[in-house]
């Protein structure tokens, strides 16, 4: 895989969970009423996406240290 292709993949992999975080955060911060159940669900999804982002960033940093 070329360096450009690796960069594209990394960008895609990082943007995907970030989209979940920003999307649900926007809903939580918005004006519309949200039930407690939905609020918990959205927060759970943000949490899971944040864990995935941390895993991706750790893997990236490990790669850079190994390079």
């Amino acid at each position, binding site marked *: 895989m070329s360096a450009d292709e690796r960069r594209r993949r990394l960008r895609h992999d990082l943007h995907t969970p970030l989209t979940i975080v920003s999307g649900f955060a926007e*809903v939580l911060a918005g004006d519309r009423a949200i039930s407690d159940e939905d609020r918990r669900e959205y927060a759970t999804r943000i949490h899971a996406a944040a864990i995935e982002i941390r895993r991706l960033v750790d893997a990236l940093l490990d790669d850079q240290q190994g390079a």
Partner: protein
Amino acid sequence: MTPLSLVLIEDHQALREGLELLLSREGLEVVGTAGSAGEGRDLVERHSPDVALVDIRLGDESGIDLTRELLDADPERRVVLYTGSSDVELLISGLDSGARGYALKEGTPNELTAALNTVAEGGTYVDPRLRPQLLSRQATQRMPSLSKREREIMDLLAQGLTGEQVAEKLVLSSETVKTHIRNAMSKLEASTRVHAIAIALREGYIQPPASDGQTA
């Protein structure tokens, strides 16, 4: 008002489920979700949604290739490509595939809903963050390439077949063939079919017909 129907094709399960929730909340009817190109194609064929949202990367598969396949089969389908990349080459390939919309993952759910509504209503959408790159690229842009199906149809027209005969040979409806021809003429900036064939020949999209009159 009937809600806009949507098929969502995204390989990342958590994002797929998240988008389904968010877009349903925005009033869209998500009639199907898929994690691969094959499943997505089946869903679009089964449900004929107002619009399909297609991730540009579906694991090892390409959302751009899937878009080409969907539009080769029915050019009236409306597809919005969805990507985390602002790579301009990818953008050009995506738009060349016939997708009518190009939305970035960094956009908000409201922006995505607006993009889907615009495309479902027959318009086009490019994420505003990409417009400067697109405009700078257009200054030096080559002519947009014809899709495989458009080339195939122009090739048959160049061999002297009528639109009806092309439709029969390719097992497509006449309307579908007309739409492909219209799209090809638009891409080639041609005013007539003959003009389009001439440009397609000149640009090397199709080969001149065999001089002995034989066709494949």
